[in-house]
């Protein structure tokens, strides 16, 4: 399989997509294109195989957000910049279950993090946040996402990854490449 990850296009085949989770399937089939092109509330990137370049095998959706500084509890704002906190939201990430176990989730997350760094370089952002299903929180934790405490007991777990950590990973990568 030669997988390419690119932005969702209008005539991509999404109807057959099945990751086993109806809200995630439904988002791709009904809302992803509209949200990207018409109402501009999220950009979806899809993984496709070169042999069937229109068939979506997996996807993720990104948006930016920010937290106004005045919303942070006073005792914590001292360590923060004197501006609103810009961040990237990894709103959704899903892989068609017929292609699970082939590293597609890893490839999608890898691209999402690289885009995060590009956005951080170009317009600035401090971290990437995701809403992980409780049974997927461990998977995100392997990549260094830390739980944001204080959410609802049931339901998705907000998780945090610092852009500086992602940068360090990139420099570890280049220093390990230099050693080779």
């Amino acid at each position, binding site marked *: 399989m030669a997988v390419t990850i690119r932005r969702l296009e209008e005539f991509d085949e999404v109807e057959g997509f099945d990751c086993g989770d109806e809200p995630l399937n439904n988002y791709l089939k009904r809302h992803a294109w509209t949200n990207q092109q018409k109402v501009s*509330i999220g950009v979806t990137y899809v993984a496709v195989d070169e042999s069937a370049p229109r068939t979506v095998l997996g996807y993720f959706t990104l*948006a930016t957000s920010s937290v106004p500084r005045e919303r942070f509890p006073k005792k914590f704002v001292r360590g923060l910049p004197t501006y609103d906190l810009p961040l990237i939201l990894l709103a959704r990430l899903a892989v068609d279950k017929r292609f699970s176990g082939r590293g597609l989730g890893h490839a999608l997350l890898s691209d999402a993090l690289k885009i995060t760094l590009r956005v951080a370089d170009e317009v600035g952002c401090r971290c990437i*946040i995701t809403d992980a299903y409780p049974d997927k929180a461990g998977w995100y934790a392997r990549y260094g996402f830390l739980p944001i405490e*204080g959410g609802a007991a049931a339901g998705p777990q907000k998780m945090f990854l610092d852009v500086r950590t992602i940068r360090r990973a990139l420099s570890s990568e280049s220093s390990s490449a230099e050693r080779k």
Partner: protein
Amino acid sequence: MPPAIKDKSKKAAPLPVKAPTARKTKFQADLAPSEDSMVRILKTELQMTSNTDFLSDALALFRWAVSERKRGHRIVSESSTGERKILLFPRLERVAPEVTLPHVDIRWTEKELESLAELASGQPAEPTDALIRAMRQ
């Protein structure tokens, strides 16, 4: 003398069928003296003798650069000391995808904001092996 009559019953021998060959296109360019000299120097450095090979290699390199930039990848050179330079080539930027992402509001509880502030104001964590692998991909 009677006029010569062609024997129509005899079929003319079929012409030999040539296998279709891809037509080669000639490429001609008007180069400024400095560019011409650059081509000559590069050909010498790369030990190339033909302009065709030169153009073919240049095309392959340009094609790669376009495909990388189309995917949003940046083209970076890195020195042995780790100093990085990013290639900024205006024509390549035309194919680069926009990275502008739309802005959304997230609902936060007070406790989540406390936790977020604590994480964001602290020292960044060391990258995990999985994260390093992801960035290497």
